[in-house]
């Protein structure tokens, strides 16, 4: 059982504060969804947790199994068990998915230790079968010339191979048609297990039709302003974000 604990987190880009005093705890086996309109700091939150150098954590803490990760580089956090599924994954021309994942696996091994290539490919192919991904897929360069759906599928495959303790999924549904969305959601659902915690960031409720969250949080102006179960997502869908805005205005006014 692992735990990702975000406490009183403040994140700035340059001088501008984006995330303001946000606290959230995710345990293994849980799926949390963070919803909110554009510009409220959802993506900033996920990138800051993953260790993007452009995002400054001005105060607060992020602890993985009780240990602060804030002084770790992005790659150390990844090796410790965090995984960020990108909204816009980068292209790496000339590097095949198979070689990329192999390098990522190798990076997790002790110095001098060599990855067993045949065991690696066996595992890769079993994960691809599980996610119904064509064998030819991994010989293509990472995200190079991929459609939106292919990019997201590549993210899901990487997640399956790297077996993180916690996955941060940043707008995984953006740019996907309904078929691609279903494939991605099936992938995540396949991976759901008592060993994986998920933080899903989404603008739209529709992803949550396919990946049913245990907890739903509404983010507004850098803070979580409302928390509930999956019914909260449906309520949001019906009433729109203006509803949250009005409630907030009433509470502070």
């Amino acid at each position, binding site marked *: 059982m692992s735990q990702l604990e975000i406490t009183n987190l403040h994140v700035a880009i340059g001088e501008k504060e984006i995330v303001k005093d946000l606290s959230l705890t995710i345990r293994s086996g849980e799926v949390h969804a963070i919803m909110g309109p554009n510009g409220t700091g959802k993506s900033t939150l996920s990138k800051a947790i*993953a*260790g*993007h*150098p*452009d995002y400054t954590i001005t105060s607060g803490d992020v602890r993985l199994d009780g240990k602060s990760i804030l002084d770790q*580089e*992005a*790659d150390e*956090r*990844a*090796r410790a068990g*965090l*995984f*960020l599924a*990108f909204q816009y*994954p*980068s*292209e*790496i*021309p*000339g*590097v095949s998915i198979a070689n*990329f*994942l192999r*390098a*990522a696996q190798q*990076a*997790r091994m002790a110095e001098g230790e060599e990855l067993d290539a045949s065991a690696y490919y066996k595992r890769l192919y079993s994960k691809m079968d599980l996610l119904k991904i064509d064998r030819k897929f991994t010989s293509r*360069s990472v995200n190079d010339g991929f459609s939106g759906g292919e990019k997201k599928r590549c993210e899901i495959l*990487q997640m399956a191979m*790297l077996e993180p303790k916690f996955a941060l999924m940043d707008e995984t549904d953006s740019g996907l048609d309904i078929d691609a969305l279903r494939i991605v959601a099936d992938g995540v659902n396949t991976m759901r297990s008592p060993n994986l915690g998920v933080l899903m960031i989404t603008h739209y409720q529709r992803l949550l039709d396919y990946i049913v969250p245990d907890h739903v949080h509404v983010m507004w102006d850098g803070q979580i302003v409302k928390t509930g179960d999956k019914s909260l997502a449906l309520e949001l869908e019906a009433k729109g974000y203006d509803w949250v805005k009005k409630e907030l205005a009433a509470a502070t006014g």
Partner: protein
Amino acid sequence: MKPLSDTLSAPDTDEAAANPVVGIDQTKGDFQYKVAYEFDAGTGLSEKTVRYISSVKKEAPWILEFRLNALKKFLSMPMPTHWATKDLENINFDKIRYYLASGQKPKRTWDEVPADIKRTFERLGIPEQERKFLAGVEAQFDSEAAYSNIKEIVAKQGVIFANSTEALREHPEIFRKFFGKVIPTGDNKFSALNSAVFSGGSFIYVPKGVKVAQPLQAYFRINAENFGQFERTLIICDEGAEVVYMEGCTAPKFSTSTLHSAVVELVALKGAKIQYITVQNWANNVFNLVTKRGVAHEEAEIKWIDCNIGSRLTMKYPGVVLKGRKARGEVLSIALANDGQHQDTGAKMIHAADETTSNIIAKSISVGQGRSTYRGVVHIPKHLKGCKNNTECDALLINSNSRTDTYPAISVRGDRHAVQHEASVSKVSADQIFYMQSRGLTEGQAMSLSVNGFINDLARQFPMEYSVELKRLIDLEMEGSVG
């Protein structure tokens, strides 16, 4: 014969300070072993030096005459700084040692190779499977060949594989005809210099129709301070014959600048195929000024695969003169310029017959304040028909202060040719690095992977052991470039 001078001059530390090179992992080439040099031409270049070299090598009078004539040309020619970098002016020809030899006879078996030299190969980190290759290697230890046994194997096919001294002495009837013909002495200042003081290098003759199964290989190092290496290679592939030649170079790091100035001439007669592969990792104080050119006769094919890593300044533009109908020429080039380094590389394709085809793919990587330059010449005259050229040059910039320049000169006359040129400049973005880091790769590993990806489509065309070596060299360079 006594050496003209038996003292090595002291390292010039001021010069090293003037060219600070930071963040480069050069441990790979950073070593030297004591070798007792039996022959030493001393420092500086004069007629006396040239006569000394020629007499040590017991050369025929025509070769001495060739050398002396070349020396005159070298001295009279200006530095090509009207188009090339002014850094050339920093070469101090008086401080260079033009000839050193340990006087050891070429060895036959691995067991007979001196332990020092074996240790050298070990320090180069040559993996097990490559050592197997080395068992059949013509390895160049300073000026003279220290090891050779593949010679015997290929000799059975009638192939002559010898060092330049030996070949000129024993087979003048074959080599004299082509020697200095592809690259005339006065082609440029440095080909003239090489022609005056050359020693070492391979001479290969492959008889008609013979296809040499295993690649012939040589490994060059510079092991003496201030010692310039001026190897001379001539490969003649007779009608329908085929050969692959590979050279790898690394040099120990010294505080003074050293000069490497080779001349490589290839002759592919009708229907012959020559592939010449180079992976170089010079120390960052080496001026690497090399002239490489081949002549491809009717339906012959010459392919240069050229990887340049390291050195202070490399100037090298492998060329093919497409002399016979349907001749083909190809240059695949990879250059990596790190801090304090300038890779000025490219290709020349001179079409001189109908239906000739040339292909140039050049990729350069600039790291830190490294600078890479592509210079290309493609020439197709008006009276020809059916010629084709494809040129692609891609540059990758790692840091915002890295620099790349491209000077493609393509002159095509007439309207019966097909010419295509593409160039691109890309940058490893911070987002790309973060993406890879978020998968657990360190920044250095991420950089390496990006760079290896960039050259992947070219590296795939290399023989396996060379692409492995190239990858390892790039990993070393990139490790030093981060943090």
